[in-house]
C-alpha cells in the first residue's frame, strides 16, 4: 500500500469519531512492563494505578515494592515508592506509616517474599494492626528466581526444587495466608481475589479500593491476596494457566472475603 492510501485509511472522519472507552491509567508510567505475557502482575499493577487515581490520593500514597518479579513496580507506578529487602516490605511500610500516619501506605509482595522469608514481618505487622494495605500476589511459585517451590506451591505441584511434585510429608502443606492472619485482632479486612477473568478483575479492583479507603479509619491492616499465575515457570500458556487457576488453585485457595469489617467498624 502506498503512503497516501495508508493515510486515507487511517484518517478518521468526523462522523466516525470513536468514543474513548479505555486508556492507560493516569498513574501508570509509559515504561513498558517487563512481565511475561499473560502474567497477573501486570493486571494487579493496573488496578493499583486505577484505584489510586479514582480515590485521588496520589499525593498521599507511598508504595513498597518487594524483591520478586515486582521488584521494579516503581518503574511502572507513578507513585512515590520504596524498594524493600526481600521479605521486609511490611517492616518498611511500618516505618513509613509510623512517621507519616496520615498517608496511605501499601506493600506489594509475592508469596516467597511475604509468606516465606518475610512471614515474621507480615504476621507482626498485622498483629500490631498497622494501618497499611498489604497486597499479596500468590502465584504458588518463585517467579523471579526461575520457578522454585514457594510456601504456597500446591501439593504435588512440580517446581525446580520439587521436581517430583511437592511432597507435603517433607515439604509441608501450602500456607493459606488469609486464613492464617484473619483471626488476628489487628486484621481489619482480609480477602482473597483473582485476576484471571474480567469478573475477578473487577472484584479485585473493588477490594483494593476498599483496602485503601479503610486506611483512613485507622482500624487495622487490610490484606488482599490475589491468586495470580506464572505462565513462564508453570510451563503453561497463559490460557492454560487460567484453567489451572480454576481447577487447582481456587479449590485450595477459595476466593472471597475472609474477614470483613462490621458496619459499625466503618464509622470514623
Amino acid at each position, binding site marked *: 500500500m502506498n503512503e497516501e492510501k495508508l493515510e486515507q485509511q487511517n484518517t478518521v472522519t468526523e462522523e466516525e469519531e470513536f468514543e474513548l472507552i479505555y486508556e492507560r491509567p493516569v498513574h501508570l508510567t509509559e515504561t513498558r512492563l517487563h512481565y511475561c505475557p499473560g502474567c497477573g502482575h501486570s493486571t494487579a499493577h493496573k488496578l493499583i494505578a486505577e484505584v489510586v487515581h479514582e480515590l485521588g490520593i496520589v*499525593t498521599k500514597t*507511598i508504595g513498597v515494592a518487594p524483591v520478586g518479579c515486582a521488584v521494579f513496580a*516503581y518503574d511502572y507506578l507513578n507513585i*512515590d515508592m520504596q*524498594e524493600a*529487602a526481600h521479605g521486609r516490605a511490611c517492616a518498611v511500610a*511500618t516505618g513509613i506509616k509510623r512517621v507519616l500516619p496520615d498517608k496511605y501506605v501499601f506493600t506489594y509482595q509475592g508469596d516467597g517474599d511475604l509468606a516465606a522469608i518475610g512471614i*515474621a514481618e507480615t504476621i507482626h505487622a498485622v498483629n500490631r494492626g498497622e494501618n497499611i494495605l498489604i497486597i499479596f500476589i500468590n502465584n504458588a511459585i518463585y517467579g523471579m528466581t526461575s520457578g522454585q517451590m514457594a510456601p504456597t506451591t500446591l501439593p504435588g505441584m512440580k517446581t525446580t526444587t520439587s521436581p517430583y511434585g511437592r511432597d507435603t510429608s517433607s515439604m509441608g502443606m501450602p500456607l493459606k495466608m488469609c486464613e492464617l492472619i484473619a483471626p488476628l485482632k489487628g486484621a481489619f479486612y482480609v480477602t482473597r481475589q483473582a485476576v484471571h477473568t474480567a469478573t475477578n478483575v473487577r472484584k479485585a479492583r473493588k477490594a483494593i479500593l476498599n483496602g485503601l479507603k479503610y486506611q483512613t479509619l485507622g482500624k487495622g491492616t487490610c490484606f488482599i491476596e490475589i491468586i495470580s499465575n506464572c505462565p513462564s515457570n508453570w510451563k503453561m500458556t497463559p490460557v492454560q494457566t487460567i484453567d489451572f487457576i480454576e481447577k487447582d488453585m481456587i479449590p485450595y485457595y477459595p476466593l472471597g472475603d475472609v474477614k470483613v469489617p462490621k458496619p459499625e467498624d466503618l464509622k470514623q
Partner: protein
Amino acid sequence: MEILETKLMKGNEALAEAAIQAKCDAYFGYPITPQSEVLEYLSREMTVRGGVVLQAESEVASINMIYGAAGAGARVMTTSSSPGISLMQEGLSYIASAQLPCLIVNVNRGGPGLGTIQPSQGDYFQSTKGGGHGDYRLIVLAPNSVQEMADFVFLGFELADKYRNPVLILSDGAIGQMMEKVVFYKRDVVKPEKSWATTGKHPHRERNIITSLFIQPEKMEQVNLSLLKKYKEIEANEVRYEEVNAKDAEFLLVAYGLSSRISHKVVDLARHKGLKLGLLRPITLYPFPTKRIEELVPQLKGAMTVEMNAGQMVEDVRLAVNGKIPVTHYGRMGGIIPSPEEVLEKVEEFISNI
C-alpha cells in the same frame, strides 16, 4: 553553649536522652543486653515527649523499619548489641546503597556467637569494613565516656544528614552500662529538608524512589563510583581523633573507646617512669586517622594498639605505618578489661624487643 542540665546517668540512658533532644522522630529496637536501657528509656520518655517508639519483632525488622522511616524523611535511630547488629547487616547495606541518613548504635558485647554480655571491641571489623555485602562504608564514631554517648548522637545525626549516609556509634558494654556525669546543652537542632523522601508524589515533581537496585552494570558502577566519591569526601573532612602526649612520643599507643581510657592511664604511668609514650585515640574509626599516624611515624620507634579483641584495628595501624616501624597489639577478650599496669608491662616488653 548554655547548659540545660547536668545529670548522673548510664551511658545507654544518656544516649537515649540525647536522641530525644536531637529531635529523633522515630526509634525502632529490639531488646538485647547490654543495650536494653535505650529501648526502655525511650519507651518511657520519648513516647510522652512526642516521638515514635516501636519494639520490633527482631533486629531484621527494626533495621527495615529504619529504612522505611528514613526513606520517608524522618530522623531515625536504632540500637542493639553485637548479635543484633549482625542481623541488621543486609538492611544496613541497603540503607547505605539507598543513601538514607540514620543512626545505628552498637553497644558491643563479646563474641563470636552468643558470646558474653560483657564489654568487647570485637565488632571493629564488622563496623569499619562494611559488615554487610557490597562496597559501602558507615561513618563510625567511638565514644569513650557517658558524655560522648550523648554528644555523638547529635554529631551522628548531623553527619548522617550531611552525607546521606548511615552513621554507627560503636560503643561497648562498659560505656553503655557505667554511670558518669553528663551535661546536656541547649542546642539549636536543625533538621534539613529532604526533597528526595517518599512522602507522596506531588504534581510539581517526579516521583521519589528509594531503592538500592541498579540492574544495569553501567548504572551500578556509576552508583558505586558516586558512593566512592562521597566516602573520599568523608575521609577528607571528617577524621576525628584525640591525642595524649603524642607530640614528643617515641612510642605510640592507639586505642579507642574504653581501651583509650585505660591507655590514657598507661601513658600517665609511663611518663612517670620517663618513658616517652603517647596515645592516639581515633574518635572516628571510619574515616580512620591514617594521615595522622603517617605524620607521627618519623618520630616513632614503635606502635601498639590496645583493643578488647584479638587484634582488629591493629591492621589499620599497620596499613598507616606501612612497614616503617614495628606495630603490635595487646588485647583481652571475653569481657575482660585489661588493667593499666598489665598494659604497661606489655608496652615495656614490646620496647625491649625492638
